[in-house]
């Protein structure tokens, strides 16, 4: 059965469809794997054993009845605990939502169920997706399967760790400033942030509404594409979702080829703060692209230097408003309601007890940035920077088809190393944030291990909005070339758990 958990999602689905495997057996194998390793990894906050098996059996019954199965029917998936799941706890990594059972499914959840995907459970994350290490979860950190004393990235560390430890072949994350891509980079998995508006945000608990984007996580580029196609598309419940056909990502992933493509390398994504081994593997990846027939163009995007500060004004501003609803009145934690206190006091005590320090820090930051007298200087200026970054991207995409960079400046750092230094923590998203600010599509995939620490390095690919298929075309070509070069997928070099 160990074989089953190492299969790709595409292979698993094919074997279920042709009758080699039952969805139930696949689900059982993954539940057994969770039982065996998750005590160490702590990827899951909640495992929905019964629900998963019921869904698997339904898929098997569907097949037995001769009904056609979707391309991912019966494939297990780990869902980030930021998506609402009807009847299943959803905490968003926060104490303030402990015990909350949503009365409705997120659109993504609904689409997964309709596609016959088996949701194994909900994965750990930084509280309200605020963080780059999953250490900000109110329910304890997740270990990186490459080295359990190191962070698995964040905020979607649980989803990435579940993939890297073979607890699930598919996972879903959300990416506000890099929360899909950075965990993918440090765990040698594949993560995609679709174009903003490509995937419905309905039922995805908001951190920063104008930046948040749900996306697929997998161990291969093709698996990510298959999941992308299932979860994406216009949703009338989310007015910011794009009313256009989903880009042909699966087709692109099946025909990886970079011959004749123009690939941009951004000057500003280098220098101080970049680990030598990361730069080395990235440079080799660029060389590989050249060998594969791509034309590499060096570009400058001067506004990118302001991306991080702009992000840390816009995201906290929006979150200060988005998180105001957690007031103890209608759902979630209620603290101090002893019959003597006013509603205001109960709200204050609940927020004091329910939110962790990073969430409080950002709420305070955002409240300040939006205050009258400061709005123009902070939120207003940050929006202008956002426009400049978008223009930088537009100019760049006049010259190139995609842009590549390291996903994150360093490999996975030790748990606890940056918890007292928020600025150091924020730097983990240096390369990923610009794509969120501009709404572009972006992917991270493995490009080797850093020689100095033997830990995975991620290659980021950024495409213009609505051109998500380019990520998969380039990603599939790079993946195939690397696997040929290494003789196996990089993840096979991870230590046994």
């Amino acid at each position: 059965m160990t074989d089953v958990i190492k299969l790709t999602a595409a292979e698993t689905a094919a074997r279920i469809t042709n009758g080699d495997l039952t969805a139930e057996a696949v689900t059982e194998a993954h539940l057994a794997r969770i039982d065996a390793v998750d005590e160490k990894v702590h990827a899951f906050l909640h495992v929905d054993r019964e629900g998963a098996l019921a869904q698997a059996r339904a898929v098997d019954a569907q097949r037995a009845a001769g009904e056609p199965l979707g391309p991912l029917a019966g494939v297990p998936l780990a869902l980030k605990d930021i998506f609402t799941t009807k009847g299943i706890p959803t905490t968003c990594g926060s104490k303030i939502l402990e015990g909350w059972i949503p009365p409705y499914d997120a659109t993504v959840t609904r689409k997964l169920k309709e596609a016959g995907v088996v949701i194994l459970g909900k994965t750990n994350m930084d509280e309200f997706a605020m963080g780059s290490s999953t250490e900000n979860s109110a329910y304890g950190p997740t270990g990186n399967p490459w080295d359990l004393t190191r962070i698995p990235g964040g905020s979607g560390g649980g989803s990435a760790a579940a993939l890297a430890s073979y607890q699930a072949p598919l996972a879903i994350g959300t990416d506000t400033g890099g929360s899909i891509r950075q965990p993918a980079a440090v765990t040698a998995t594949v993560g995609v942030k679709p174009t903003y508006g490509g995937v419905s945000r309905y039922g995805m608990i908001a951190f920063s509404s104008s930046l948040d984007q749900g996306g697929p996580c997998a161990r291969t580029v093709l698996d990510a594409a298959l999941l992308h196609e299932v979860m994406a598309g216009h949703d009338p419940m989310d007015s910011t979702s794009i009313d256009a056909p989903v880009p042909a990502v699966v087709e692109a992933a099946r025909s990886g080829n970079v011959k004749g493509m123009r690939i941009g390398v951004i000057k500003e994504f280098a220098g101080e703060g970049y680990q030598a081994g990361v730069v080395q593997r990235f440079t080799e990846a660029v060389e590989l692209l050249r060998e594969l027939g791509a034309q590499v163009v060096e570009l400058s995007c001067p506004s990118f230097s302001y991306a991080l500060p702009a992000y840390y004004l816009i995201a906290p501003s929006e979150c200060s408003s988005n998180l105001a609803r957690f007031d103890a009145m209608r759902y979630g934690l209620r603290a101090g309601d002893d019959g003597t206190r006013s509603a205001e006091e109960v709200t204050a005590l609940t927020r004091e007890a329910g939110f962790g320090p990073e969430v409080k820090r950002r709420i305070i930051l955002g409240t300040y940035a939006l205050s009258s007298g400061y709005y123009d200087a902070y939120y207003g200026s940050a929006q202008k920077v956002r426009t400049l970054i978008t223009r930088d991207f537009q100019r760049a995409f006049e010259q190139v088809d995609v842009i590549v960079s390291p996903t994150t400046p360093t490999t996975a750092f030790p748990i606890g190393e940056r918890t007292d230094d928020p600025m150091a923590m924020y730097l983990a998203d240096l390369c990923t944030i610009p794509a969120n600010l501009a709404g572009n599509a972006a992917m991270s995939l493995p490009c080797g291990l850093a020689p100095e620490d033997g830990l995975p390095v991620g290659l980021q690919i950024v495409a213009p909005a609505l051109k998500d298929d380019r990520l998969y075309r380039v990603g599939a070509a790079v993946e195939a070339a690397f696997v040929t070069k290494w003789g196996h997928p990089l993840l096979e070099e991870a230590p046994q758990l």
Partner: protein
Amino acid sequence: MTVTDLLSYDEALAAYDPVMGLEVHVELGTKTKMFCGCSTELGAEPNSQVCPTCLGMPGSLPVVNATAVASAVTIGLALNCEIAQWCRFARKNYFYPDMPKNFQTSQYDEPIAYNGYLDVQLEDGEIFRVHIERAHMEEDTGKSTHVGGATGRIHGATYSLLDYNRAGIPLIEIVTKPIEGAGERAPEVARAYVAELRELIRALGVSEARMEMGQMRCDVNLSLRPNGEQKFGTRSETKNVNSLRSVERAARFEIQRHAAVLSGGGTIVQETRHFHEEDGTTTSGRIKEEAEDYRYFPEPDLVPVAPDPAWVEELRAALPELPLVRRQRLREEWGISDHEMQSVLNAGALDLIVATINEGADAAAARKWWMGELARHANESGTELADLPITPVQVARVAALVAAGDLNDKLARQVIEGVLAGEGGPDQVVERRGLKVVSDDSALGAAVDQAIADNAAVADKIRGGNLAAAGALIGAVMKLTRGQADARRVRELVLEKLGVQG
């Protein structure tokens, strides 16, 4: 309650010039809420018309109600506003338990409609132009019921109940520019403006605008400045003034209160005030020590609203005749004075009269019945004219019977009485009460003979050429026929039988 010092109204106006700002919230009559599909029906079980979105559940998102946008544009056009070609919603952030997200989705510096005016007509027919600053879209809050306190307000309450059925109902907030130059007529202008706005909203069919149901709510902002001064004084904001009469009274009270404070050397505190229906006073609500900081920013969960100019023009072309224009047209058609028209309006008779005319009555008759007999009934029974159990169709039928000579006025009044008493329609009442005018000569002849016999002296006078005396005999015939005789025919018969030329 503390007694507030007031200056007499005349003294106040002798020294000070009032400036007003009126903010009116109108709940739109859309079937569903502003940002979700929940019903807006009033009177449902508390918290039965709610969903993840209007409860502010984690993960939920708003979607704009297209009908509400159309209503907002229509209101803007009717208020002679410019319509934004591109505008956004904004979040108004503040904590309050009846607001599920702890921000209200509203509009801030990009209202859908701005820079308009509404002409309002005062009692004496004078037209006063009220300039409109803006009309913007937003959502209503839930409803808090504070239990255990003496006043029903939160102060002193032991607990509060929350009903979120109202949360998310579409609102249009219409804000005037400072209303200057109304002088002593400021309270009247305030009332006339709200009344005109209510008529307008109803005529547009976007809301029933029933103030007693909270579908239309008014905040009266008022300040005084010494006569001749340009600079505005400090204002008070009297919240939720919910009837036309109260709007006028609140403005009047605040003028007198401000004047008393100012003339006593005091200063006005910028604060919100509560209006009390019972005695027409206001009391201090919460003091705004500093301007409240709502931390407005553009709502990132919604895409901008960009009304297509062609669509706006379609809405403009579809605007109905606006109330003031319609009233002026009708006034001319009916040939009545401004004052008479004002009485019709005050009685709430306009639409009833128009409907009666549409059913075939002539204007004078329709007006006569509604403003006379029926208005008297409404007054006596303390009901609105429109709520009387008689329809324009029935009134038109009565008028038709009179015009055909089948009823005289006296009989017609009895028919109306019968209809109001629930005896059926006009024809049924005529039938059942036997109220037809008698003009049949054989039936009348006997009554005339009887009258002549009973009043020989009068008959002699008539025979002697005193035609004026005929009235007494006609009266006697009417008495004998219980008023059902056709008076004109009776006169002819009397003269004929007495051999006198009429």
